[in-house]
């Protein structure tokens, strides 16, 4: 309390002690900076999406984009479509998912239901973490080293799928593991108490309960790997035509189409490049929506 009379000061003590200007300013500054950081992050997102849409929308609005390949077309020739690349991307993704999903789920089941606390489980968790961080190009090189260098097999879409499996498995493990862990132990105990063996408890009680989240994770993981470019660059050659044979011959995919058309300086090339980009984003978005839809449909209901 100061003894001199301060004329500006109100005669009554304020009910609440105010906070000093410095603290208030620092608080405001911090709030401002953090909000700014968030806004800055939105800039590239909006910018990228805008770039892709503005450059790629025109070509994909033509009907033949979705139904024709680029077979027989010259680099500067307009027309044709990305059907061959869409087929390739979906096919490689599908084969990858078929292989990666069971492996990923079994690893997660091991970690949650069987291994908990053992040294092998700790090693597995660590390796899943490491696998998460393995660059896609290294995964591709590994498949190349085994599949092509050692086995002497040709480059093929299947080799791409194998590389994608390496990238997808850890993501599936992580999400499945998380979902299995939140299944209450009550349910496992209830099943055991009915005399249900452990594996049936897992298959018929634990997995159905976690299914919704598991499916979401799997579809999102798939969406992620379908945009990978490094494996297709290394493990399969581009073909401008449609190829359904994953074990033989060249096969296009959207990322591969983009890398090929990038070196095509004509307008047709630019259209194909950005058209493929928007198509890829559309497919990934569709998978994300599918994931959200699946999680809604398969969630345990109470009504």
């Amino acid at each position, binding site marked *: 309390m100061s003894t001199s009379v301060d004329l500006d000061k109100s005669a009554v003590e304020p009910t609440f002690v105010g906070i000093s200007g410095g603290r208030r300013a620092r608080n405001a500054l911090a709030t401002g900076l953090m909000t700014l950081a968030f806004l800055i992050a939105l800039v590239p997102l909006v910018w990228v999406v805008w770039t892709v849409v503005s450059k790629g929308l025109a070509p994909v609005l033509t009907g033949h984009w979705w139904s024709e390949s680029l077979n027989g077309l010259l680099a500067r020739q307009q027309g044709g479509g990305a059907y061959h690349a869409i087929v390739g991307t979906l096919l490689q993704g599908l084969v990858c998912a078929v292989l990666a999903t069971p492996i990923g789920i079994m690893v997660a089941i091991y970690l949650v239901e069987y291994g908990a606390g053992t040294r092998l489980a700790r090693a597995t968790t660590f390796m899943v973490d490491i696998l998460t961080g393995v660059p896609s190009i290294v995964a591709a090189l590994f498949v190349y080293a085994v599949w092509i260098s050692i086995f002497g097999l040709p480059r093929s879409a299947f080799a791409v799928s194998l590389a994608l499996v390496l990238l997808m498995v850890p993501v599936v493990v992580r999400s499945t593991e998380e979902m299995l862990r939140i299944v209450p132990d*009550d349910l496992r*105990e209830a099943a055991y*108490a009915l005399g*249900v063996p452990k594996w049936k408890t897992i298959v018929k009680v634990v997995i*159905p*309960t976690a299914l919704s989240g598991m499916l979401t994770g799997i579809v999102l993981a798939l969406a992620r790997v379908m945009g990978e470019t490094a494996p297709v660059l290394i493990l399969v050659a581009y073909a401008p035509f449609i190829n359904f044979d994953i074990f033989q011959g060249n096969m296009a995919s959207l990322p591969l189409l983009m890398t090929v058309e990038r070196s095509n300086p004509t307008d047709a090339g630019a259209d194909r490049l950005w058209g493929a980009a928007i198509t890829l984003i559309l497919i990934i978005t569709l998978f994300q929506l599918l994931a959200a839809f699946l999680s809604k449909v398969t969630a*345990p*209901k109470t009504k």
Partner: protein
Amino acid sequence: MAKRLDLKDVNIFYGRFHAVDNVTLSVAPRSVTAFIGPSGCGKSTVLRTLNRMHEVIPGARVEGEVLLDGENIYGSSVDPVGVRRTIGMVFQRPNPFPTMSIRDNVVAGLKLQGRKSRKELDEVAERALRGANLWNEVKDRLTKPGGGLSGGQQQRLCIARAIAVQPDVLLMDEPCSALDPISTLAIEDLIAELKTEYTIVIVTHNMQQAARVSDQTAFFNLRATGEPGRLVEIDDTPKMFSNPTQQATEDYISGRFG
């Protein structure tokens, strides 16, 4: 159907921790035995060893014998899965399977063994639901999810699920502690009815409940914190509540302790 349970020198460990010390007791067929005692005294632990549910917890281990009609459920050739099929359990919190309908919940045990026709399962479901006094409340919505029922109904659903596999013994681990008083009464009435067919062991925190539903009461206690739990006394319920042998029992029952 209903069988007799005998525990002989049962010691229970979690890893190196000695949780329950040297319990010996007998449970007659078609009777209700209540386990009472303060929190952490090991009564639920003992209950879980009666159908080998404690093995689900890593590091848990039992010494001694638990005899079901003279046969040791810990015998080296006995499958714990088979034990649990014979000795059913109802848990503290109702835990219906969220992905299954009411009917499927009831017959889950049989269905997962995969050896019954649809018609048979429907019959079992009705019988079990009637047995659990739930049939009239749910008969029109058997295909709806079990999670939509009230807490008390869910618990009766769990009881129906447990009796649908026709166990010899039914273990109940504080089955009413998560329920309101009206639902609790419904369950207690049900226990009185089930007693005519099953051997029942119930763990309860509620001494009035023990007095109301049980024929025989066992009081568990700890000597001190960190010491293993032990069986202080077991006797006919009226005697336990009017004239127990042990001072500790009397203190607990009269509310001077715990």
